[in-house]
């Protein structure tokens, strides 16, 4: 088990600027209820992690092909949409942070392109370079956050808690936002080794738990440093909080966190789309055409992703209003992917957990998880003013991706009759 994977991969999206901004908004809206809501969200993500770990240990029996296709389709759709849209946003954000904080004469878009080129090059250099880069970026982010937290605790320890200015009006609408904070914890599986359930589960739960404390502490510090109303509506609450906590030094530290956090998130997302499909079964593949084999190479995927992201940045898409909705669309599908994991377990049929001190039916956990994830994604969709555009984007990507996966499984994968019938078909969670 690689514990560093908790921070370097599992937390890569949780400390990216978009999540820090979301965290600030939610903390400002929920105030005293924020720690409770964060804990509830973390609990539901523990459930997601446990179900994912359980799914990886399925033996010869496995979910049906339809369920497997649903999982694969949602996984690929979510990761590609989030990789393209969120990377575009994050790289531009990093460019602005660099230009406004460090070197004002260096064009912000030029920095964004340089960052994209460097990350793509790192991926083409191989997995070792990717891991080293991710580790370095994560160290910068976590060190910076630690320093700011220490400064915040030193400054505000003993201060009275934030007062709820409004009744619980903001609570329902912000709960769906809280559900997005821990998205990406499963990226830890990309590089955290583990093909066994206990290791996978431990890594993921460890990631969620530690980050819940870290993000909760940052939310508390933000509430102490910035008025709740301003925190809830600002697009850069994390920068304002850092500035109020540590002055210009705090501002510079947060800029470094924004740049490194953006790079780490983009690096992790590029890694997630460059690998074979999530939950890919160990099925021998029949002869495939050359173009398909080339398209499945990690380098090809990285180049395609980088070119699309570069094209979007050059086209000014990051400055449009709709990009934020498209990012939410991708995250929404990621929530549905988590729900699909639970559905897969339900379709498999879980036994009653006899070793638990409390005997509860095996279906309770996946039902709760699927309900929470599906409900959050629906809430995110219906409360967004660009609901139609989000739905359109999801369908435009999901349908062809699922069709392509089905076609690949149908025509380019050995069927059961072609395999050795005595050989079990493992359902592996990791690559």
């Amino acid at each position: 088990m690689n514990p560093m994977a908790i921070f370097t991969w599992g937390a890569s999206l949780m400390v990216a600027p978009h999540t820090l901004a979301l965290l600030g908004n939610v903390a400002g809206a929920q105030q005293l209820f924020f720690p409770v809501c964060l804990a509830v969200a973390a609990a539901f993500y523990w459930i997601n992690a446990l179900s994912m770990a359980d799914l990886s240990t399925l033996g010869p029996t496995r979910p049906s092909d339809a369920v497997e296709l649903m999982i694969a389709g949602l996984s690929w759709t979510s990761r590609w949409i989030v990789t393209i849209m969120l990377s575009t946003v994050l790289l531009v954000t990093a460019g602005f942070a660099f230009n406004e904080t460090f070197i004002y004469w260096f064009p912000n878009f030029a920095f964004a392109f340089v960052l994209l080129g460097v990350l793509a090059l790192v991926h083409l250099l191989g997995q070792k370079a990717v891991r080293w880069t991710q580790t370095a970026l994560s160290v910068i982010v976590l060190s910076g956050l630690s320093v700011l937290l220490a400064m915040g605790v030193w400054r505000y320890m003993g201060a009275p808690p934030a007062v709820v200015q409004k009744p619980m009006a903001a609570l329902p609408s912000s709960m769906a936002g809280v559900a997005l904070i821990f998205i990406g914890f499963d990226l830890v599986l990309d590089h955290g080794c583990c093909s066994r359930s206990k290791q996978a589960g431990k890594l993921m739960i460890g990631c969620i738990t530690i980050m819940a404390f870290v993000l909760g502490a940052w939310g508390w510090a933000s509430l102490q440093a910035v008025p709740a109303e301003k925190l809830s509506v600002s697009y850069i609450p994390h920068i304002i909080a850092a500035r109020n906590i540590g002055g210009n030094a705090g501002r510079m530290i947060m800029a470094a966190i924004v740049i490194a956090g953006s790079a780490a998130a983009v690096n992790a997302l590029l890694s997630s789309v460059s690998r074979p499909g999530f939950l890919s079964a160990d099925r021998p593949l029949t002869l495939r055409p050359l173009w398909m084999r080339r398209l499945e190479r990690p380098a090809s995927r990285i180049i395609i992703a980088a070119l699309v992201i570069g094209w979007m940045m050059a086209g000014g898409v990051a400055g449009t209003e709709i990009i934020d909705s498209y990012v939410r669309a991708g995250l929404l599908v990621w929530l549905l992917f988590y729900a699909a994991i639970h559905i897969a377990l339900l379709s498999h049929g879980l036994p009653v957990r006899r070793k638990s001190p409390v005997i509860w039916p095996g279906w309770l956990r996946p039902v709760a998880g699927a309900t929470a994830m599906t409900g959050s994604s629906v809430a995110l969709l219906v409360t967004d003013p660009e609901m139609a555009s989000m739905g359109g984007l999801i369908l435009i990507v999901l349908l062809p991706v699922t069709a392509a996966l089905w076609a690949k499984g149908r025509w380019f994968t050995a069927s059961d009759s072609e395999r050795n019938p005595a050989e079990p078909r493992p359902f592996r969670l990791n690559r």
Partner: protein
Amino acid sequence: MKNWIILIGMIVMIGMAGSISDASDDRIAKEELLETMDEPNLVVIDVRTGRDWRSSEFKIRGAIRADMSEFDKWAAQLPKDKRYVTYCA
């Protein structure tokens, strides 16, 4: 190696296409603008939109916001006796 060269070359070309300024544009340096900020006839127009504007930590005091995609609409309505500086990044 070939893949790297192609990728880096295309990203650089795209980046340059987006970042290279038109030499015929009239530009004003930050220091010069700062010196003339108090002029009554000077109007700064912030043309950043969406996340470009929201993610920025700094907004110029007194600047008015406008969308460059609707330049023809608002440009015609501006008084002709003032000096305008557009700001994008």
